[in-house]
């Protein structure tokens, strides 16, 4: 009896899932997993209404989704993917993406210049930026430089990003700058971190974990991306966003079209919709994504929580994709040898 019921329930579930997929016009997109409820309200649903189509959304982190696009390259499932700048270059080099016909994007000219074609191959368009700096307990320490991360005041009270994360190389690059060596091999900063590794509480993989560690007083400081700031700003501790003298680092996320995907026009329509001033403003006001569209105007309070404005964008120290990609293997092996042992 119970088995019969279960089987009927399962059959119903299979049917409902397949039925949902059978709708005529669908666009399949692949995005980062965060703030999906906000994206749904401010981006997906308005678009579905406008185009009369259905959006199917895959979420996950950049590298894992890219691995799936690679596996499915003969018969692409995803029409449009949102990944990091570096992974976009990697995808382009592996022949997984197509050139974007930006003549079909009415909002293209409204973008900041560096968002228009970040990798110089015409295969990606930036839709948001973020700054990366250091969140710290202002009642315990002061941070004026990236080198302060390794100061004696913070020994045993600081977390750094793992080199495998997007934030990892950014932090190391800024640390290198503070130590007077900007070489893309990151040799100096990795060696320095290796030397001090017992003073580092953890090399984090998920920045969301840091709020927990901050709350438990395990750490007083950690480098983070601005997108993770909201969690810290809500805490009832004196936590500040550092403005180190070497400047802030940062990154850009981009949209790409998978090679040979079927719904090209719809994908371009969606891309244009996402880049439009209205949508970028709505996402900015809800603190979801910082705008790449320079026509977006937001209040000071909102701007304060984002990476906003021509001046800010110009001053971000982005790591060029080729540098990040070509050195990745080398960074990882140095890191494993100096820090991971």
């Amino acid at each position, binding site marked *: 009896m119970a088995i019969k019921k279960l089987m009927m329930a399962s059959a119903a579930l299979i049917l409902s899932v397949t039925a949902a997929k059978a709708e005529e016009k669908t666009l399949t997109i692949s995005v980062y997993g965060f703030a999906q409820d906000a994206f749904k309200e401010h981006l997906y649903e308005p678009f579905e209404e406008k185009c009369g189509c259905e959006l199917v959304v895959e*979420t996950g982190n950049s590298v894992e989704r890219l691995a799936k696009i690679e596996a499915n390259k003969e018969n692409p499932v995803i029409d449009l993917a949102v990944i990091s700048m570096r992974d976009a270059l990697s995808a382009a080099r592996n022949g997984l993406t197509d050139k974007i016909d930006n003549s079909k994007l009415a909002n293209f000219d409204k973008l900041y210049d560096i968002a228009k074609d970040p990798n110089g191959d015409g295969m990606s368009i930036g839709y948001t930026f973020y700054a990366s700096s250091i969140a710290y307990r202002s009642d315990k320490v002061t941070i004026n430089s990236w080198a302060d991360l390794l100061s004696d005041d913070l020994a045993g009270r600081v977390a750094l990003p793992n080199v495998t994360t997007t934030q990892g190389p950014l932090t190391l690059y800024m640390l290198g700058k503070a130590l007077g060596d900007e070489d893309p091999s990151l040799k100096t900063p990795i060696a320095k971190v290796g030397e001090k590794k017992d003073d580092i509480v953890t090399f984090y993989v998920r920045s969301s974990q840091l709020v927990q560690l901050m709350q438990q007083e395990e750490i007083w400081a950690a480098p983070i991306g601005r997108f993770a700031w909201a969690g810290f700003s809500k805490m009832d501790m004196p936590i500040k966003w550092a403005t180190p003298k070497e400047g802030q680092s940062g990154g850009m996320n981009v949209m790409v079209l998978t090679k040979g995907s079927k719904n090209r026009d719809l994908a371009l329509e969606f891309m244009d919709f996402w880049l439009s001033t209205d949508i970028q403003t709505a996402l900015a006001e809800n603190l979801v994504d910082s705008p790449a569209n320079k026509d977006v105007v937001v209040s000071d309070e909102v701007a304060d929580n984002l990476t906003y404005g021509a001046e800010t964008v110009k001053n971000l120290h982005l790591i060029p994709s080729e540098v990040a990609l070509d050195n990745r293997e080398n960074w990882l092996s140095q890191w494993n040898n100096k820090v991971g042992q």
Partner: protein
Amino acid sequence: MSNKLYAPIILLLVLAFLIGPFIIIIAASLSAGETLSFPPQGLSLRWVIKVFEVESFRASFGISMFLAIGGTIAALILGIPASYALSRYKVPGAETIRTIVSSPIIVPGIIVGLALLRYFVVPFNFGILFALFLAHTALILPYAVRVVSASLTNLRSDIEEAAVLLGCSRVGAFFRVVMPNIRGGILAAFILGFVTSFNQVPVSLFLSGPGVRTLPIDMLSYMEITYDPSVAALSALLAFMSLGIVFLAERFLGFSRYV
């Protein structure tokens, strides 16, 4: 005297170690604060309520339930006859078959996920949900075979031979004599299978796709950005739900004694 004290002390210590984290999770999910903490900073149901407000959790919960229950039943349907044959018949190459069937336990999940995606799902162009179902069934199968085998080995085979001698058919003997006696094993296999599937991360990571993903994958991606007590609340709710299923399974399997 010391023997009487031994059991409670050991059990208390072991349970404190095993259950401690669970108590922390429950306490944290009832916290009013923004992070996990023990003791909780004030009491509130806000995180429990939030779990039900996150839309994607609902869809992925349905898919995870389907995979865990459907996969476990499928694995038991394949696994019980196989275990029975392995323990009651002289099967040529029994050891090899045992190894093949139990191999999914031994291979790291990431490799299983990648291998299945690249050499099974993509070439044959399977639907996502169907591929996940097959993969989960394969992952649960070892538990079904091993645990059921263990209880069959310990069940003396002369009672079913006696049943056959007394005029019962082979199939009848299996359902009347063997099944009731191994239902503990089947229950254990069911629990292990359900739990394995429900908490499975690496295989589902690669096999899930647009619109179809399991709850743990959803939780992980939620936590990439937000780590608030709602994930603790969700885990606690799931634990209570799993307990309910175990309870039902026990009642259901308990009934089979009278079949």
